[in-house]
């Protein structure tokens, strides 16, 4: 089963500033992970340790200042080996000079067997198909269909 986790937040700086937080290891570590080795160019290294989880991947797209796509997997994991998923970060300028940061993480590591558990064992019950409409920034309108664990209070 393919699942996609989507989430967004408005960050109080223009995309040109925010973009650096995805390509500069020192800035990246201010918000995620505790060790990073980055080579922000297509095919470049994306190594990030998050609380003991060794995330290993490559930069796939580096489009300043609007988009970064990295491959994402966990070293030593059979279910989610390095390069097995992709995470996309999209930066869109807002009318107020801030940046809307969107994360899309398809095929996040939710093991197949979890969906075959009895419903009362399954966190959040049945998964929900969520239809999410971007309110539109700079004419970029899109609709994201995602099958995920819905957390409406957070995303």
């Amino acid at each position, binding site marked *: 089963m393919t699942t996609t986790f989507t989430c967004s*937040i*408005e*960050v109080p700086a223009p995309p040109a500033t925010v973009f650096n937080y995805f390509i500069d290891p020192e800035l990246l570590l201010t918000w995620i992970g505790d060790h990073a080795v980055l080579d922000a160019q297509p095919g470049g290294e994306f190594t990030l340790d998050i609380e003991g989880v060794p995330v290993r991947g490559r930069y796939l797209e580096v489009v300043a200042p609007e988009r970064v796509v990295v491959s994402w997997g966990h070293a030593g994991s*059979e279910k989610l080996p390095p390069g097995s998923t992709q995470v996309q970060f999209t930066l869109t300028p807002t009318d107020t000079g801030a940046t809307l940061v969107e994360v899309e993480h398809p095929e*996040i590591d939710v093991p197949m067997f979890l969906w*075959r558990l009895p419903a009362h064992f399954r966190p959040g019950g049945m998964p929900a198909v969520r239809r999410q409409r971007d309110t539109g920034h700079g004419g970029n309108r899109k609709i994201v269909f995602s099958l995920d*664990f819905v957390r409406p209070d*957070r995303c």
Partner: protein
Amino acid sequence: MFAALAAPQRQQILRLVRDQPLPVGVIAESCGASQQAVSHHLQVLKEAGLVDMKREGRRRLYVVNPDGFDSMQAFVADLWPARLDKLRQAVADGET
């Protein structure tokens, strides 16, 4: 927790014990694995909080612990929202 789920045989064990508590011997027989190997897998699953052990007389029975899956769901659901919150804060701090 993801490491605990990585081995296919551990996923097979979880499927077996999700419906009813089972002793190691029955699990091993169903999996076609040795009791020693299954005991090891169960220990890993137990340490990850995915399986509970309970005693019934002299037998030790293993069963899925649904709370373990709740915490995994929480990990998945909280990863990006929590990190994006930190990103907003980090950028705000950097701008001042």
